[in-house]
């Protein structure tokens, strides 16, 4: 992989190059988490968020409400949805990994590809940037992930003195970089990049040391029976905030409306935390209790999804669910409790 140096003073040119083809969004510093802002004008300089943004990228890929069919109508039988071409600059590694979770379901399914997702995905240009700090809810390290992206981006930036070490991850990213006539990154910049990565990883280790579990999350769920270790569920109110802010949650429901001239079918975000999510006509519900729905979310992310899709967790450790939980439930604490429960069970045997 060719590493080039993007000096701070060329950032404007970098933005404007991308803006020739894409509507520009960037992750800016804010109190606590960063924010994704739309850049209508190219800024003279820009301060990237050191940590993940409050918003995930889900909104860029799966609309809250998407018209999926107007029927009867020939134009919706075969469809090439026209999504706006957008670029998000300054995305963190966790959110880049989150997109992979969606891809497996909507794009890489050999039987059925979702045309709306495919179009949104192909229209999205992603520039990732290494974390230069960590929130106390960040826990990618507990999942074996890193505070920077290694793949899945069009371009990755690593902040160093005076600019960024830049790497292209796709042909279209490579084209942008080569159009800027950048010189190769010097060894000193690369060392600085590596030092920063190690520093942030060490910080994450420190933040999360009290949450370390002996067994992996998947093993803990495989062994889990009944309510042992699930004490945190008592604080859940079933609001579904965790699933709405999650960068890997993708559940939706289809609903139909009668219009004047045709019928409309929409897909809208849904949540497995809602009591009606799996309830059947007639009222039968396979997950009637809040505890079952609470466990379902963990099981899906750390057990069912990995079994179905190549062992990958459907969680990236961004910690948004922790920050946004009305009951202040910390996923790390749930697993810590499960770990303790598992130890107690073993010692009893």
């Amino acid at each position, binding site marked *: 992989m060719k590493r080039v140096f993007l000096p701070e003073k060329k950032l404007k040119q970098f933005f404007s190059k991308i803006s020739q083809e894409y509507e520009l969004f960037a992750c800016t510093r804010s109190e606590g988490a960063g924010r994704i802002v739309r850049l209508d004008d190219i800024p003279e300089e820009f301060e990237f968020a050191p940590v993940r943004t409050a918003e995930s990228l889900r909104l860029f890929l799966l609309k809250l409400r998407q018209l*999926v*069919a107007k*029927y*009867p109508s020939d134009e*919706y*039988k*075969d*469809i*090439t949805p026209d999504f706006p071409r957008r670029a998000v600059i300054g995305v963190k590694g966790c959110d880049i990994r989150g997109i992979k979770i969606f891809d497996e*379901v*909507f794009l890489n*399914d050999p*039987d*059925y*590809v*979702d*045309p709306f997702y*495919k179009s949104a995905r192909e229209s999205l240009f992603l520039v990732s940037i290494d974390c230069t700090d960590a929130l106390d809810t960040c826990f990618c390290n507990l999942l074996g992930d890193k505070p920077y992206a290694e793949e899945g981006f069009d371009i990755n930036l690593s902040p160093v003195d005076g600019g960024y070490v830049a790497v292209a991850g796709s042909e279209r990213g490579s084209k942008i970089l080569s159009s800027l006539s950048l010189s190769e990154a010097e060894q000193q910049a690369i060392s600085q990049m590596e030092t920063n990565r190690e520093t942030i990883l060490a910080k994450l280790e420190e933040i999360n040391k009290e949450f370390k579990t002996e067994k992996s999350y998947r093993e803990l769920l495989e062994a889990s029976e009944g309510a042992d270790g699930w004490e945190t569920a008592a604080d859940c109110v079933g609001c579904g905030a965790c699933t709405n802010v999650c960068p890997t949650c*993708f*559940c*939706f*429901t*289809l*609903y*139909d*409306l*009668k*219009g004047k001239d045709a*019928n*409309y*079918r929409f*897909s809208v975000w*849904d949540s*497995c935390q809602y009591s009606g*999510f*799996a*309830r*059947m*006509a*007639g009222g*039968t*519900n*396979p*997950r*009637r*209790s809040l505890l*079952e729905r609470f466990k379902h979310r963990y*099981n*899906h992310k750390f*057990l*069912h*999804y990995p*079994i*179905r899709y190549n062992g990958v967790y459907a969680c990236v450790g961004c910690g948004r669910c922790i920050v946004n939980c009305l009951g202040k439930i910390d996923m790390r604490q749930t697993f810590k409790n499960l770990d303790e429960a598992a130890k107690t069970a073993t010692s009893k045997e």
Partner: protein
Amino acid sequence: MKNIYYPYEAELIKIKDETPNIKSFFFKLSQPLTFREGQFMQLSVPGIGEAPFTPSSKPGEVDELVITILKTGRVTDYLHEKVKPGEILGLRGPFGHGYPTHLFDGKTALVIGGGVGLAPLRACLYGLFGERYEKVNRISIKYGARSPYDLVFRDEYEEWVKKGKVDMSISIDRPHPEWEKGEFKFEGVSQTVGLVTVLLDNLDVDIENTYAVSCGPEIMLKFVTYKLLDLGFKPEQIYLSMNRRMSCGVGKCHRCNIGPYYLCKDGPDMCYADIMNYDPFGSI
């Protein structure tokens, strides 16, 4: 690109009353389709909504389709009360795998249905009555419904058992005067009273050489499964039609999963051995 959410037009040509709350809807398709027994369709009532149903008619390449539906929710209420022959409804599918009928070659097919659950199983039976019939050893049908009036496809049982390899027994949940008086008498069919599991008492099949398929309310599937396990069936010999709530039908919306399985893509007919470790009946 093909729009996986678009419902294709299907003309409703006939509605037949099966029971007071179950009707069969006959469709003429705008283009022929091939479905396997047990595969399901997403049926749309335009502008109202969509729900998954397994056809009850003969599988294979067809240009007509029958779907037998219990009135039990928003979409089905609409189908029962408002929809008239001649109207154009929408269909997506077929989806899923369907019944593993190849397993029945040289074996006994134990077919256990409850209420409207006999509808998908009828497609399975029609499949078995076709080319496969030569290879199957025996087809044993156990069917339960709430009352004699809730039995679906009543005019076909006698025809089925006349085939030779087929035997059938029926139970109704509670005693019923007309049942006792023999006003619902089916020639060659054994009839009793009790939940469908009573038909599995004193089961006279060679269990080792039998595969069971069952369709009905999930509470019934749960107890049928436990009964079969009690009798010595292995989890591998039990197939359940887990026709749960589905929305997309194509493994995207993540509503119908049991563990890592999507009922829409991997089912709806699941081998109990596959799902047994994933709390298959939940709070049912």
